[in-house]
Structure formats: C-alpha cells, structure tokens
C-alpha cells in the first residue's frame, strides 16, 4: 500500500487545523450572513411573488417581468415560508455556544 509522503501529510494536517480554526471563528458569521441575505431575498419574493403563498401584492405584470430572476429560488423559498407559523415571523433559534 502506497503511503503519502510526510510533506503531504503535514500540509493536510495544517489544512485541517485551519479548517478547525475557521469552524470556531468565521463559520458562524458566514452562516449568519447567509441567513440575513436569505431573509432579504424572502422579503423580495413576498413582495414580487406573494400571490404564490396567498399574498397578492404587485400587479402580475411586474411579477412576470421579475419571474426569470427568481425562478431558481422559488422551491426553497416556499419550503422556508411553509416552516413558519406566520409568514412575517422570524425568530433566532440558534443557540450560539451556550
């Protein structure tokens, strides 16, 4: 069985340490930034395509013009909104290290 050279193992170990440090430090910020972006996109979707979940807001002509830009997000957005008791409700359930 071929064994990896020592330098490869060393660099793999260093990479693992860097990933561990990132997990302890930046990962949570990255997740939260994604969550904030996701929230903004959800608001945008409600404003433009609210009628898909029963909230007609914009006249359909504008929705149709925006539709091509939001198609990739529709499935995720509907699943996300379906999890909420109220569509405007968003609570912080992340326990962040207690």
């Amino acid at each position: 069985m071929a064994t990896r050279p020592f330098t490869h193992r060393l660099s793999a170990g260093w990479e693992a340490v860097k990933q561990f440090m990132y997990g302890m430090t930046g990962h949570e910020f990255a997740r939260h930034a994604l969550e904030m972006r996701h929230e903004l996109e959800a608001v945008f979707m409600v404003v433009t395509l609210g009628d898909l979940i029963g909230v007609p807001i914009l006249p359909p002509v504008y929705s149709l013009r925006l539709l091509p830009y939001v198609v990739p997000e529709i499935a995720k957005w509907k699943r996300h909104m379906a999890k909420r008791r109220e569509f405007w409700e968003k609570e912080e359930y992340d326990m962040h290290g207690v």
Partner: protein
Amino acid sequence: MNTLLAVIIGALTVYLAYTLYARRIDRNVIQSDPKRATPATLYMDGVDFMPTNRNILFGYHFKSIAAAGPIVGAIVAASLWGWLPAIIWLVLGVSFIGWASDYSAIVISVRNEGNSLSAIAHKLVSSRTRTVLLLFIFFYLLLVTGAFVMIMAQVMDSQPRTHLGIIMLVVMGLLLGQMLYRWKTGLVGATVFTVGVTLLAILSGPWSEPAFQGLNAWLNGLTGGAPVVTYFDPMLAGFKGAEAKIMPSLLFWAVAIAVFCYAGSVLPIWRMAQPVVYVGFWITALSMVLGLGGAAVASFVKPEVAQFQIPAFKGFNPQLGPAGIMPLWPMLFVTIACGAISGWHALFGAVGTARQIENEADMLPVGGGSMFTEFLLGLLALLAVSVGAKGAPVGTFASGLGGFISVWGVPLQYAVSLAFAAFIVIVLVVTQLIFRVMRITLTEWLGDVIPPCRNQHVSSIVCVLLALLLVVTGTWVYLWQLFGGANQLMAALALLLVTVWLASVGKNWLYAGLPMIFMYITTMASLLVTAYNIYFNVYQPNREAGRMLPMVGSGLMVLVALLLVVAAVFIGIDGWRAFMKYLRRPTPTPKTAPARG
C-alpha cells in the same frame, strides 16, 4: 500528584475511549454509512441544512458546547470533595456517558430528518413530552442564569481590576458587529483590532483598579455602609453558615449585568450577542491554550506551580451549612457537568450541528471528538483549582490558571488578571445568550396562552427579574447544583430518547440505556437532596429571621427543583411505555438508504 501526570491521564483517556469504545459503537451498533444521504444533503437550503466539512464542523460544534460549565463545575467539586473524586468522575463520565450522549444526539437527529429532540420525542414517545420538555428547559435555563449572574456580580464586586476589560469587551463587541456587517471590514483585521484592544484593557486592569474601587466605595456610601439585603449563607464560616450581606455595589453590578443581558437578548443577534461572544472566545481560548500548554510543561519549567495544593479527598459527605448534606453520590455527578456529560450538548447537537453533517462518517469525530476536547477543558479547570493558593474557589482557579500562563514568561500579576478576565468573559457571554434562548423558550411555552409573552421585551424582562430574584438568595452553589441536576437530567432524557429510538429500529440499546438509567436515578436524587438543602439551610434560617426576599427566592428554588422532578417523572413514564412498546414489537426490516446524489 502533578499537572504533567494529570495531562497524560487525560490524553490516554481520550485515546483509549475514542479508539476502543466509541469507534466500536459507531461501527457495530450505529453502523454509520458514508454512502447514506444525510439531511444536510437531502434538504439543503443554504441556511439551516448545509453540508459542511468535518473539520469546520468540529471547530463549530466544539466552540458551541464549550462554555463556563466545565470550569465552574470543577471549581466547586474540587473545593467540596477534593481533586481525586473529581478527576475519576471526569475520566469515567466522558469515557462511558459523555461522548455517547453527544454523539447519539447527532445520530438520532441525522437519522430522523434533522429534527430536534423535542420533535423526535413527540414522534417516538408522546405528544405531551414536547410541552414538558419546554417547561423543563425554561426552568433549567433560569437556574443557570441565576447562578451565573450571582457568580459574576460577586467576582466583579470583589475584583475591581476586571472592570475595564469587561467594559471594553462589550464596546469592542458592538464595534465588531458594526465593522463586519455594516462596514464590511475583513474578519482578520477586525479581529486583530477588537481582540487586541480588549486584551490591552484586561492587562491594564491593575492600573484602573483604584478608580473602580472608588466607585464601589461611593456606591456603598449611598446607604451609609448598610447592606441592601441580608441573608443566611451556608457557604460562609468554613461551611458552617453565617449572615451574608448584599452591599449596594454588588447589587449595582448584578443589575448592570442584567441590563447587559437584556440588551443581548432583545437586540439583533449580529449587533451584540454574536460579536461579543466572538471577542470573548478569543480571550478565553488564548488563556486556555496558554494554560493547558503551561500545565503540561510546568513540571519541567516552573515546578512550584505544578504541584497540587488541595487535598486529594475531603470525605464522602462534607458539611455544608448547619443542616446540609452533600453526599458524594449523587452530588458530585451533577456538580461536574459539562466536562463529563451535559444535556446542553445534546440539545445543541441535535439542532445546530446535525443539520450540517455532510457524511455519516463525520458524526463520531464531530460529536464524540468535541466532547473529548471539552473533557480536556474540564481537566484544565480542575488542575488550575488544584494547584491554586487557598481562598475563594474562583480566586483559587484564577491564581492556578495564572500560574500556568506565567510559565510562558508572562508576569504573574498580569497572568492572574488575564485568568480572572477569561473566567468572567466566558460566564458573561454565555449568560447573555442563555437569556436569549430563555426568552424564546418562554415565548414558545406560554406565547399562545399568555399573548404578552410573545413580546420580546416582556419575555426578556420576566426572565431577568426571575434571575435577579434567585440572585438575592445568595446561595450560588445550590443554584449551580440545581442547574447541574437539571442539565444532567436533560442528558439522561436525551439518552432516554436515543434508547427508545435504538429499540424502535431493532438495535442494541445498552450503550445508551445503561448510562441513561445511572444518570436518571442520580440526577433525580440530586435534585431532591438539593431541594432538602435549600429548604433547611437557606429557607428555614431566613424565615426564622423574617427576611422576606431571600425567603421568596429560596422558596422558588425549592419549587423549581420539585417541578423538574415531576416533569422528569412524566417524561420517564412516557419513555418507558414507548420503550416497552418498541421492544415487544417484531424487529423491523431496515429500510434501504436513499443513495447519495
């Protein structure tokens, strides 16, 4: 005994328990399959469900479970029973119970579509279990906030050298949130600046001490040196009990901490709670890494800080207060919680981590590995308190940790300042987050029945006031042990769920079932012992002296203890019924795992 030997014992424990026991369970019982799709890959939404590299997740999970628990527990246990029982429980607890609980909570969630423990309890056990669990979690959080606010207020009142660092930590945390999320500053630059300034402020603590001493003296002068509240504290006079006084300065710091926690609870999480935790994490991590390294090499470099100073064993039932009992079983097993086993880890693992597991083969390194690392943190705290000079427990810990840090050439005075600050920082940042989770739990639990509880300000104020009420009883050791009992009982309930699930899928349930029985009986007994102690040691003396406020606070503690016992009995009965139902059922044929796409 010296620290080098203890570090070797710790390293051997981790190696042997992980390779000989944990891996075997993962391979033979759980049969983790790298080809089976996980919820993160099945339901990826880019936010909650997100496949994440195992090393990143290990760091994330460890940081999320490592808090003040392993430190405070070791300090209290070593001062009550000596270092030997504490180290034995840490080693045995993590080897046979702790890793199993943390790992299994992740497993059960991954195999149940990423659901939380309460949702799985609803599905596997009974519908009322979820409500009982919410009630349970709320009171368990209340206990820990009461204990932490009290500990912090006492340390801040007696150690004015820590104030500047703590104030600067909050200011830098707020600045970091603004820099990262509004000014879009890079993480590395923002970290170097905010953590650097906070560290400077902490190390400048001794210089700012006279100013804060003056503030405390001025506050105490407002009442002419008279206390605001007087209560009977069984911890004083060599554990025989004596009158204790809450001075205006202590009340001021308790209220200041409560206001800080209120802000952390109601402001957007990116604005305050998250960045303050982040800055605090670096301060604590720096102290712990320097301390653990120092403990390992101190025997060669500075032997005088490596020798244990406290007795190995102080007795099976140390006297605590005039009528108190503190038997080693069950009390040691709840006093040391997080370094050996913790219910909080299971709660967090099932929700926060399980939804990011990319591959089933990562469940053990992430869940079990983080718990073993947490054990090392608990061991370090035990070493620090064991080598520290005599005195108050927190002071002993700080002087011990400061001694380890001084091995690296840091002057002892500054090293002790850093150790004190690290302790307060970790407790402070954790407390504000607990208030946040507590108000959410209150909203979930009572929001539909009492609509004002859905308002975040109302629910936060209720939580803060309840915690302050517990603070004025002054008996933080009992608060801590009540919390420990609730926390360990939470772990037992998580293991109960795992046992029921293992029975439901026809797997060998013994590795989770036996620890569950031990923890369930132990923690129920500990809650009853603590309720007895609080009643006879705190409630009775204060009632005889006609002190209303401490009487109400300690009465509330007794009630909470009994409530937790009743809640656990309900969950236990439901769990037993569900377990027997699955056990009598013919073994199900395992479903074919969906292939990874």
